[in-house]
């Protein structure tokens, strides 16, 4: 039950939505509602106005641009993403992560734009968004703004997005030739959220040497992060078992880990190394395939 009254609008264009959002009274956009409505039931969010994005057709699309950039509309649901052929083929770590979000019903409604805007520290999709060096394209009163994933995640429920901006799409550059990606998750047994989620994206040269390694980690720190020390350790190796273990062991270096009932900081840091190893192994397998 929602007791706090609000007005509801469902504009047809993103420009109208931005305008309505900028009107000043406590307005919020709603996408899948799977983070916002539970907060509204608890009274933790009490918007005066809800601006539903669902009629903005372009936000639902997943498309590939001429240069190979894969563009995922903010309203693409976790389910749309997990089942999309292009995403599965080119952005396997994202497809894996989307397929691991919550449960079947949550994936049917929840959106990637909502997940990135809400920025729960335990959300899955931020990890592959970081690992693929995606760009978050936002629309605000001054027009369009592109935010690199690396500059986007600031903390738990904190991002570089301004209150008057709406995420329009998430842009994933086309991965180079022999690239493999994978997401490995230790899910909270009750909530399903990530206690640890690691997205690994690895590009190998024809001789099998690792050319580029990118590792995004969710669930562990206040904000999703790139495990740069682990990436450096893997790059230039032949990605044999020893190199993978050594790189994975560095995946929580320099990180202040969260501590809660599900996992202490120390345990979380251990989990990262285990799940980083699994994600890297699967990513390499896929890159070699």
């Amino acid at each position, binding site marked *: 039950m929602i007791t706090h*009254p609000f007005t509801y609008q469902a504009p047809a264009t993103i420009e109208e939505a931005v305008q309505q959002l900028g009107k000043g009274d406590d307005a919020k956009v709603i996408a899948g509602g799977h983070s916002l*409505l539970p907060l509204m039931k608890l009274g933790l969010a009490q918007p005066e106005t*809800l601006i539903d994005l669902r009629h903005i057709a372009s936000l639902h699309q997943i498309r590939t641009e001429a240069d190979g950039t894969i563009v995922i509309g903010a309203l693409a649901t976790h389910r749309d993403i997990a089942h999309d052929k292009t995403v599965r083929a080119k952005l396997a770590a994202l497809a894996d992560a989307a397929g691991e979000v919550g449960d079947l019903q949550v994936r049917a409604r929840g959106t990637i734009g909502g997940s990135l805007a809400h920025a729960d520290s335990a959300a899955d999709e931020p990890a592959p968004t970081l690992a693929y060096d995606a760009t978050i394209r936002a629309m605000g009163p001054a027009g369009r703004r592109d935010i690199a994933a690396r500059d986007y995640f600031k903390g738990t429920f904190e991002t570089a997005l301004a209150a008057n901006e709406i995420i329009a799409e998430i842009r994933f550059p086309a991965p180079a030739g022999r690239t493999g990606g994978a997401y490995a998750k230790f899910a909270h047994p009750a909530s399903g959220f990530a206690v640890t989620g690691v997205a690994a994206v690895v590009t190998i040269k024809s001789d099998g040497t690792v050319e580029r390694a990118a590792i995004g980690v969710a669930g562990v720190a206040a904000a999703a992060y790139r495990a740069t020390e682990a990436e450096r350790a893997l790059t230039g190796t032949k990605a044999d078992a020893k190199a993978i273990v050594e790189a994975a062991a560095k995946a929580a270096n320099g990180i202040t880990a969260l501590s809660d009932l599900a996992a202490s900081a120390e345990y979380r840091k251990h989990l990262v190394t285990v799940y980083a190893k699994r994600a890297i192994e699967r990513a390499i397998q896929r890159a070699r395939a």
Partner: protein
Amino acid sequence: MGHTVTVTVNGTSYSREIEPTLLLVEFLRETLALTGTHVGCDTSQCGACTVLVDGRATKACTMLAVQADGATVVTVEGLAKNGDLHPIQRAFAKEHGLQCGFCTPGLMITAVDFLERNASPSDAEIRHAIEGNLCRCTGYHNIVNAIRTASAEMRQAASGEAKIAAEVQP
């Protein structure tokens, strides 16, 4: 401020004036008096409120009724056709897939969406599909059996229909 919404539920179109705060599950249960859809938790956890919205299994406690304007909804009351139970309903009865029955409407709807996309699932896939549906009674085992049995019956029915269609071909 009231909004007029038009929602097709189990094949019938309903137009009603509602407040934006009304949840889809409240619209179904209170406005339309379709009480087969249950509310177990009202916190998006249990899946008792699951209905199909445009073919997708959705927790109706986590969607506003105004968001369903123009949508097609199927609830447990819409599963049987002309008095014939849906294969999933027959399978839950046959396999003893329920005890108190509170979770059953939501589980059957989730299973219908799932089997639509995966006609011959493994038990592991079935268990993954019903992660968003909690049952306090059965221990899930017979629910998994029921979904597997329904999938077999639905495959058989589909191949029967294909055969009839092939025979009818000139």
